């Protein structure tokens, strides 16, 4: 094969890729989004496929394929989903760490999200905190705090009120200067000039937001997400509409923000973060002013967000009943450290 991947329609080549690893399949995903060809009429030729590639082929909806070098680990996936396959050579496994990391108990959606994160095809960025120490009015709030979050990962931080959860978020946002340690968002050190230029990549939902009574429409609140960057008016409108449609609040775009319910306000605030293309989302007690219905809706929205755009999300809350619904990893902030 002269290309890494070839897509055929009625024996005509309609798409090729010369990328490596899983990237040809992610490129194909983008092609298929914009293609009008019925997917069942397509035939895929790939150089190498293991379990990971097989899962992606299934996820793309491809039904027929030829693989030059096929791993035995891909067969159960193809057979489970009824994919017609042929191959040139079969091996018991291929040298790929990703294939080893896919667990049998993972669902197709979990596998797909895992592969996207591994390929950097999620909105999320990395967060690395090392030996962080923060003092407020001479009192130590955080000490030697360490945290490492990968792209598109989520974490819930629990702890008592006044334990330093908000201080941690404000330190990550650069609103509080640490006395020691470093915070890296992606490759940028918080406080550096590079970070300053891309500050909008960190979205923030604070506790006070639901009490704001400033005369402002929902669409204007979402527009705040792009107020720190220079874009054309048409791009601005497009991003606002897209973010509001994704979060299901486009119908209330002209409503006054302070007249909305707590749940609707949080929906708008998440739309604001999406509008600013936030790669790291910090949520500070987002259920503080929500009733049960609002909490349920917010949980659904966050789970949906973690599966689609998948920004890296750090949520602090003392509402453990609600955070349990999210099924995200938990840590506890106690004595200035994460446990």
């Amino acid at each position, binding site marked *: 094969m002269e290309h890494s991947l070839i897509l055929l329609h009625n024996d005509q080549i309609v798409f090729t890729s010369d990328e490596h690893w899983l990237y040809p399949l992610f490129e194909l995903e983008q092609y298929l989004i914009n293609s009008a060809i019925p997917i069942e009429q397509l035939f895929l030729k790939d150089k190498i496929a293991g379990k990971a590639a097989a899962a992606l082929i299934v996820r793309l909806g491809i039904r027929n394929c030829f693989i030059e070098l096929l791993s035995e680990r891909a067969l159960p996936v193809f057979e489970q989903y009824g994919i017609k396959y042929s191959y040139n050579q079969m091996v018991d496994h291929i040298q790929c760490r990703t294939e080893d990391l896919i667990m049998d108990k993972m669902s197709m959606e979990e596998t797909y999200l895992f592969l996207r994160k591994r390929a950097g095809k999620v909105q999320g960025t990395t967060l690395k905190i090392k030996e962080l120490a923060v003092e407020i009015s001479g009192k130590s709030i955080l000490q030697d705090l360490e945290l490492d979050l990968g792209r598109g990962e989520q974490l819930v931080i629990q702890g008592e009120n006044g334990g330093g959860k908000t201080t941690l978020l*404000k330190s990550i946002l650069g609103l509080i200067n640490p006395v020691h340690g470093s915070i890296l968002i992606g490759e940028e050190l918080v406080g550096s000039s590079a970070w300053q230029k891309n500050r*909008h990549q960190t979205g923030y939902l604070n506790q006070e937001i639901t009490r704001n009574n*400033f005369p402002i*429409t929902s669409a204007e609140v979402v527009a705040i*997400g792009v107020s*720190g960057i220079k874009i054309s008016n048409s791009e601005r409108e497009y991003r606002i509409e897209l973010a509001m449609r994704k979060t299901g609040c486009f119908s209330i775009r*002209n409503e006054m923000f302070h007249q909305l319910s707590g749940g609707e306000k949080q929906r708008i605030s998440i739309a604001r973060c999406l509008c600013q293309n936030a790669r790291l989302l910090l949520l500070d007690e987002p259920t503080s002013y929500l009733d049960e219905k609002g909490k349920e809706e917010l949980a659904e929205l966050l789970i949906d967000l973690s599966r689609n755009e998948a920004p890296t999300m750090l949520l602090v809350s003392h509402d453990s009943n609600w955070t349990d619904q999210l099924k995200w990893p938990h840590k506890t902030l106690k004595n200035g450290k994460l446990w």
Partner: protein
Amino acid sequence: MVELFSYTPILKGFIVLIFLGFAFPITGVYLLRMNLLPLRFMLMHGAILGGALSLAMEVNPFGGTMAINLILVLLMTWMSRSLKADPGQLSAFFMVLSISLAFIFIYRFQVPAKDTLSLMWGSLYTLNNYEFVGTIVFSMILVLFQAYYRHQLRAVFFDADIARTSGVNETGFYYIIILITAITVAAAMKLIGALLLDAILLLPALIASYHAKSYKSMVLWSSFWGGLFASIGFLLSLLFELPASSTIAVFASAVFLILILTKKK
């Protein structure tokens, strides 16, 4: 009444009033939104100090009031941000300090108190060319500033932390807003007086806040009401041969009252 406009001071006063009527209420929106109401009391007293100093030094009081107000707001803002002190309390402190110093200057340099306190009433018809052009230019700068930075200002007014995390230079905008407020108050004092400047500065923004549903409409309505009060109030003052600033203030208050009562019904 039309023939009165053939008098240069009246024509100049009317032109300036139209410009400031439409532009200055934008500052009123800033004052309301950023809860800077105590600041304007400090600026009023600062203007009296500036006037007393200028008269003692025999220089133009307009420049003196402007300079003192700028120094006061910069000091107040710097102290509130760096020392994390309450802006309201600092405003009260500077207000007391300003008026105390003003009366020390009045006493020490035997400045006629009447001349200093004339700032309380304003003098629309005694504008020199610099003041005339300066006020028009500042009004235009204010409108352009609002139009160009409307997105960033909306973010700052909504929530300071959210603005910062969206990439807006919130601190920079805060300082600019404070400076604009200082210049607006000093200019408005010269034109319509300390006691009546709220008719142009705050009442239009207050009325707009009752019916505005968005930030954009609040700014536009404030500007509309300000322009209406200034122009109609001025014409009424000529018609009934009343002081312009007082007539504008009474007209604005009457409209405010009618709208409040109508809203209650």
